[in-house]
């Protein structure tokens, strides 16, 4: 029933994955799946409740925006899941889970036989049981040990060593020694220890692989948003479609309504409005008239434009940002995960300890056989089961806790970096604010005016018109005739015999030309509408909490100074205005150079380089593709509280990880002297190994409520 259903169709189907906010219960799953399947153009939808994603199989011609709209009409908010789909049934995780199953099966069955040996089976029975154990353990080790053997061999070939070398050496030596003991009918064989060890190690490895993300290429996703061709006007007035790499400065391009502009340029003819959200993250469209500059990657909203290309291809502003991001991402890859740092110390220590034990017993006059047994016991006892589980189990548990609070952790090491954060930089538009305009009071009161206003607003797809429409929900629209949308000016119509206008103040008839959007019905007084991008409902609260916890917070914005300082005062946060992608990146680099650990929270393409350069980064799930790909953590929903919650959870995680290390090392300190002294029997090894692993797991489970 949970197998993903696929439908074979004559037409090729596209498959797109969306992150969905608002999934809470079985009803939601069925509503979303059945609702989407009923939409023409969608063949099937499959919800993954664990990861809060839905995979939609749809026809090619159905765009992502259409599907997001369909999901929204069902009452959920969704964003395209940028990045590689992580299918738990594929790749590394699956190899590890199958190896883990084999090791677990072998461990259980060998243990069954071992218990009878420990209870006193003797002579021929003991030898028979040892042979049976060998029969189970040998193929199991050959299958489940591959991840370790392969990696150890690769490291040795390069003349280096890693955590897998002592593991592989320990496993193989123990197997050989146990076989020898079995052959001579000796009392102790360690088959149970070997397979149990592999089982615990594989558990750690599997959890770790769940928390690692494959490299995602944000830059190519960004450039994938660029159009592949453009309409070029030749000197004799004919228009031809030309691929984007043939566009050169000086050419004239015709940009139709709804088309993405293919190159940076200057408007020659036409007046329209431009959606610059991909490049600047700004939600309100900007007016474009002859002489104004337009950027590649922005969308022409209202009327056809003719532009003269000034920069094309790799010289455009968007390509510059892509290059900045590529160079910014390099520093972050130098971070060494805490588990890797631990393993660097671990391998040499274990090998020298085992060698010293062997030498020590020989010096003390024991035979080679006895010395080898003691040395191998040291290898078994020091095997890093608890150490291997210490980090990933804590990260998996806390990632689950954060997921329930709407924070998606893309990579386990992000939690380690987040715990060290002392400085928080926040973008304004779309991060501190919701990133969509909303009407802040001051709508006309008279029912006639409200009805006329709604009639006008309904006619346009302009974000401000949408916001007005939303604010007037429940009002009956008046009948309007002669509706016109004037690019750069506004909307006009005849309502009830008089002219109604919604748009720029001077055009509507207001005396103050600097006011926001205005509305006027006939000769009634002009109504000034306050439209603004509201801060997230809990933004002030979240910033207060960050300040209380002694983080240095700063708001970075590309907007003009008055807007930024007004919001900064309201939220009591330092603010910098007129920031370009470069200057955001420069601030991050400067802070990091002075020893700060920066958390960058941003959503737009303009934040991309800073998100990449910062030690750790977060983005709202509603961010642009670039923001989502560059960030280490995503938060769903309208709340900014996710930021302090994630930091607090990350700090608790590091606390538990340190405790886990202490438990694992403490256990080794207790058990290793026993092993060196030669007192370790298979029973002691089994108890010590499972005991310490269970302790570490139990300790990590305390993190289940860490996200608060």
């Amino acid at each position, binding site marked *: 029933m*949970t*197998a993903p*259903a696929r439908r074979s169709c004559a037409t090729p189907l596209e498959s797109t994955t969306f992150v969905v906010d608002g999934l809470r219960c079985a009803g939601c799953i069925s509503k979303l799946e059945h609702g989407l399947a009923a939409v023409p153009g969608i063949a099937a939808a499959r919800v993954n409740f664990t990861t809060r994603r839905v995979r939609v199989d749809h026809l090619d011609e159905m765009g992502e925006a259409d599907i997001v709209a369909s999901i929204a009409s069902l009452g959920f908010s969704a964003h395209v899941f940028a990045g590689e789909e992580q299918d*738990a049934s594929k790749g590394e995780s*699956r190899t590890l889970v*199958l190896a883990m*199953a084999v090791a677990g099966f072998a461990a259980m*069955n060998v243990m069954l036989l071992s218990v009878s040996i420990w209870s006193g089976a003797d002579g021929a029975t003991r030898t028979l049981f040892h042979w049976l154990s060998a029969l189970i353990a040998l193929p199991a080790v050959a299958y489940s040990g591959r991840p370790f053997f392969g990696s150890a061999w690769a490291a040795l070939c390069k003349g280096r060593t890693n955590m897998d070398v002592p593991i592989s050496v320990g496993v193989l030596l123990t197997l050989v020694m146990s076989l020898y003991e079995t052959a001579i009918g000796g009392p102790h064989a360690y088959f149970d220890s070997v397979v149990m060890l592999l089982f615990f190690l594989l558990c750690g490895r599997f959890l770790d692989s769940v928390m690692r993300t494959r490299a995602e290429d944000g830059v190519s996703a960004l450039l994938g948003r660029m159009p592949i061709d453009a309409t070029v006007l030749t000197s004799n007035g004919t228009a031809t479609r030309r691929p984007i790499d043939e566009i050169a400065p000086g050419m004239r391009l015709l940009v139709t309504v709804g088309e993405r502009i293919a190159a940076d340029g200057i408007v020659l003819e036409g007046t329209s409005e431009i959606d610059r959200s991909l490049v600047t993250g700004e939600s309100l469209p900007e007016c474009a008239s002859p002489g104004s500059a337009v950027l590649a990657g922005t969308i022409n909203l209202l009327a056809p434009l003719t532009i003269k290309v000034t920069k094309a291809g790799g010289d455009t502003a968007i390509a510059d940002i892509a290059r900045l991001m590529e160079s910014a991402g390099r520093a972050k890859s130098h971070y060494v995960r805490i588990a890797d740092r631990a393993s660097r110390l671990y391998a040499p220590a274990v090998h020298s300890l085992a060698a010293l034990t062997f030498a020590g017993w020989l010096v003390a006059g024991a035979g080679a056989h006895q010395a080898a047994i003691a040395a191998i016991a040291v290898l078994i006892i020091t095997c890093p089961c608890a150490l291997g589980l210490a980090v990933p189990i804590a990260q998996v548990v806390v990632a689950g806790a954060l997921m329930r609070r709407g924070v998606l952790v893309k990579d386990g090491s992000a939690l380690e970096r987040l715990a060290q954060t002392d400085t928080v930089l926040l973008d304004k538009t779309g991060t501190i604010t919701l990133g969509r305009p909303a009407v802040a009071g001051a709508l006309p009161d008279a029912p006639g005016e409200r009805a006329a206003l709604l009639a006008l607003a309904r006619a346009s797809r302009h974000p401000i018109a949408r916001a007005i429409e939303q604010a007037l929900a429940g009002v009956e629209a008046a009948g309007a005739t002669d509706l016109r949308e004037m690019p750069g000016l506004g909307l006009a119509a005849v309502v009830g015999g008089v002219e109604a206008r919604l748009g720029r103040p001077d055009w509507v008839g207001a005396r103050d030309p600097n006011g926001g959007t205005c509305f006027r019905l006939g000769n009634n007084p002009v109504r000034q509408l306050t439209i603004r991008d509201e801060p997230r409902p809990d933004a002030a609260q979240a910033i207060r909490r960050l300040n209380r916890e002694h983080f240095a917070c700063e708001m970075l914005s590309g907007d003009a100074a008055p807007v930024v300082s007004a919001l900064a005062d309201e939220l009591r946060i330092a603010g910098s205005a007129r920031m370009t992608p470069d200057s955001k990146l420069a601030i991050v680099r400067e802070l990091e150079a002075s020893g700060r650990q920066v958390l960058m929270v941003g959503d737009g393409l303009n934040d991309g380089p800073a998100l990449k350069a910062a030690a750790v980064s977060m983005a709202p799930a509603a961010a642009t593709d670039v923001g989502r790909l560059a960030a280490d953590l995503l938060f769903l929903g309208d709340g900014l509280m996710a930021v302090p919650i994630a930091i607090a959870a990350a700090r608790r995680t590091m606390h538990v990880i340190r405790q886990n290390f202490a438990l694992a090392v403490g256990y080794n300190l207790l058990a290793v002297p026993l092993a060196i002294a030669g007192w370790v029997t298979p029973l002691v090894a089994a108890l010590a190994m499972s005991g310490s692993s269970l302790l570490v797991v139990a300790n990590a489970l305390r993190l289940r409520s860490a996200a608060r």
Partner: protein
Amino acid sequence: MSGLALLIPLALALGLSALAAFFWAARNGQFDDLDGAALRVLIDEDPSAPVEPDR
């Protein structure tokens, strides 16, 4: 000893069959969405809805 000769292979065969079942389940994506699977039992299947064919 004759009891062991029967019981040990039997125990191993049972264990192996469980292992085979796990391999099948993992390969069929039974563990892809554990939280969702727990909720899906609560969904009333609408008989008129198109049934998605299982592979």
